[in-house]
């Protein structure tokens, strides 16, 4: 490319570049608003009375009140349900982080018989129709004596997380430079040692992604807990929300408030975890 042509292209491209840049910023801003507004609606709804929620649909409450939040906290029995939700989501994520990185590592790095078949099965399991799996899960839970315990919900959730977790972790582990692996082998590390000391710590981003995705899914699960429990004090938060929705006359302000209370812990988790998310490209993975 001659310097003259280079110069012309660069002026033209700079102008178009700037225009595109402005449009891009505008588009991102609009999409940010679109992403946030239901959340804003929820916040504003929790500060309104039921009548105002029905008559004033715009996000600014006329007479903001904290009464709704207080009433909802009590109506939901928030502390009890919160603990139940934490148990279910926490146990699920813990198990997922123990079981699936191991499998992902094996699929990515090791060789063993039936490797392709097993992987295909896990991927295929992604498409199993969820609707017809519900009853057999409850039957299985009952036969294993798990009804009424958090495990009745946790184990199916963990199993359901398998396809995506394994695919993602395998992809991530495959991209770790193989030299690290070889160096560890030369150092006399056992397979598990290599996994635990090298691969696991390096995959922070993937682990965080898996944790966040599955925590949200487990947190929002409401069918299984309702079906496997008869004791209302064991219900997680979404079941409590469902009860608010089935009053004869729904108190929409309480529904908004309950939804907000349910969502806040997840947002807190996301904000905390994503600080550990590695930024930028893989340049930092050296040595």
């Amino acid at each position, binding site marked *: 490319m001659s310097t003259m042509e280079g110069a012309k292209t660069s002026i033209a491209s700079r102008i178009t570049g700037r225009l595109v840049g402005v449009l891009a910023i505008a588009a991102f801003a609009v999409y940010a608003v679109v992403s946030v507004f239901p959340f804003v609606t929820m916040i504003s709804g929790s500060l309104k009375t039921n009548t105002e929620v*029905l*008559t004033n649909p715009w996000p600014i409450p006329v007479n903001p009140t904290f009464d709704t939040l207080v009433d909802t906290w009590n109506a939901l029995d928030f502390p009890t349900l919160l*603990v*139940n939700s934490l*148990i279910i989501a*926490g*146990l699920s994520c*813990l198990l997922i982080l123990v079981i699936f990185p191991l499998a992902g590592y094996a699929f990515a790095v090791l060789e063993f018989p039936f490797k392709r078949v097993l992987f295909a099965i896990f991927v295929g399991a992604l498409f199993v129709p969820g609707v017809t799996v*519900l*009853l057999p899960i*409850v*039957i299985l839970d*009952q036969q294993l004596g798990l*009804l*009424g*315990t*958090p*495990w009745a919900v946790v184990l199916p959730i963990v199993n359901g997380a398998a396809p995506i977790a394994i695919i993602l972790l395998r992809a991530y582990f495959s991209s770790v430079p193989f030299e690290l692996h070889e160096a560890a082998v030369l150092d006399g590390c056992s397979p598990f040692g290599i996994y635990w000391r090298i691969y696991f*710590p390096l995959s922070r981003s993937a682990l965080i992604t898996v944790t966040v995705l599955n925590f949200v899914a487990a947190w929002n699960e409401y*069918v299984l807990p*309702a*079906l496997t429990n*008869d*004791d*209302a*004090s*064991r219900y997680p938060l979404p079941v409590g929300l*469902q*009860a608010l*929705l*089935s*009053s*004869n*006359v*729904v108190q929409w302000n309480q529904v908004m408030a309950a939804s907000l209370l349910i969502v806040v812990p997840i947002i807190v988790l996301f904000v905390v975890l994503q600080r550990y998310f590695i930024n930028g490209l893989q340049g930092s993975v050296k040595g």
Partner: protein
Amino acid sequence: MQRSLKAVALVTAFATVSALAACSTGGASSEEVLSVWTFKQSEVEALQAVGDAWGSENEMKVEVSVYTPDDAYATKIQSAAKAGTLPDVLSVHSQGEDWKLAQAGIIKDLTDVFDADWQGQFLPGIVDAAAITQTQIDNSGDDPTSTLKDLEAGNFYSVPFLAGTPGVVFARKSLLEAAGVDSATPPTSWEEWVESMTATVENDPATGGLVTGLSVPETGLFWLYRPMAYAYLGKDAFYGRDSVDQSPSWDSAESVETLKLYDQLSPLWAPGVLSLGIDQADQAFADGSAAWDVGGTFTLSSLTTFGVDASDISVFPVPPSTTGKIQTIAYPASPLISGAVTNTSKHQDEAVSFLKYLTSVEGAALFASTALDLPATAVPESALTDPLLKQLVAVIATTSGDETFAPNDFSAQPAGTVLHDASVLLTNLPAKTDTPDGLGRSMSELYTAAWAAIK
């Protein structure tokens, strides 16, 4: 190293918490428990009140649990049936759900205990409607998912405690007056009603319209169209149209005439009605965004909770057309929700006793005032305090004969999804995506196919 220690600590913490959580709470209670399941949140308080009253006499504790929405309730029963954890008493929708559960062997046949004395306490027509008829058994066909062939005609598999009728119109007097419509006398004919609605819509299109929860298409079919069509066609033609002979057929002139009458409503619906749920429609009416609301006796509790001024509301049944076969029509109460006793219950006699109390005058009055709904038992008006409830009781007929329409009598229908499909087709008229003639043809095809599938 530090990380593994942290990990170990985390795991231990979780293990402890989960172990604590998994341990069952509560020691043994000295009282026996009668467990009751329902699917309506609004009934919980009422059932619990009745349960407490009954329980104190019988030294038992009644525990009411609710599982909503309806699909979750069905799944809960299904999984409990498999797991053996069914309760003692189940709330079921009358005239259908109870029979399905009885066929599956989940609930008990109550015919022997449901004696003449007990039967006498109910509103007229309730007991007849609650018993299964031979026609219904025959029409259910052989399809294993919907057959009822193991049941016996004339038997009772549940006891109704909540009654009502759809096809009730609520009107806001102040909006009518503003449009120059006489709100003191309700319209006695379909044509008169359409005229009044046209006036309110012309006066203010934003608030003068008609609402019902059309996002659930069955509301249009069950609450509005069927009562009007029954009055127009007369009893034989109305049931004959849905039968296997389809005489008259859905696309015959008289049938299409009913669709044309329904189409007269198309310009009168409130904006956005097709996306309104049942509660939303009631809310819209309560806030004054609509002048007319079609619902049933069950709409009462919604409206009361919304704080509508009872003196501003007038109530009347869906009026018949002047051009039809029946000129005056009445709606007897139908059983809506019944209580059933499960076969696996260990307290079957106590369960029956509870149901007996629930449907006694004393229990029913308590239930009605707490739930703000119409009980299946004949409770004297003096026992009721709510003014709207009194108005509704007046809508319920005490006569029988051709002039009464049983809204929940679907005995003529073929089994399968035909009612839902017909409801969806009917929404073509409010959506203005079909004509009455075209719709008549589609309905005719639908019913022909539905009956053919049963053979």
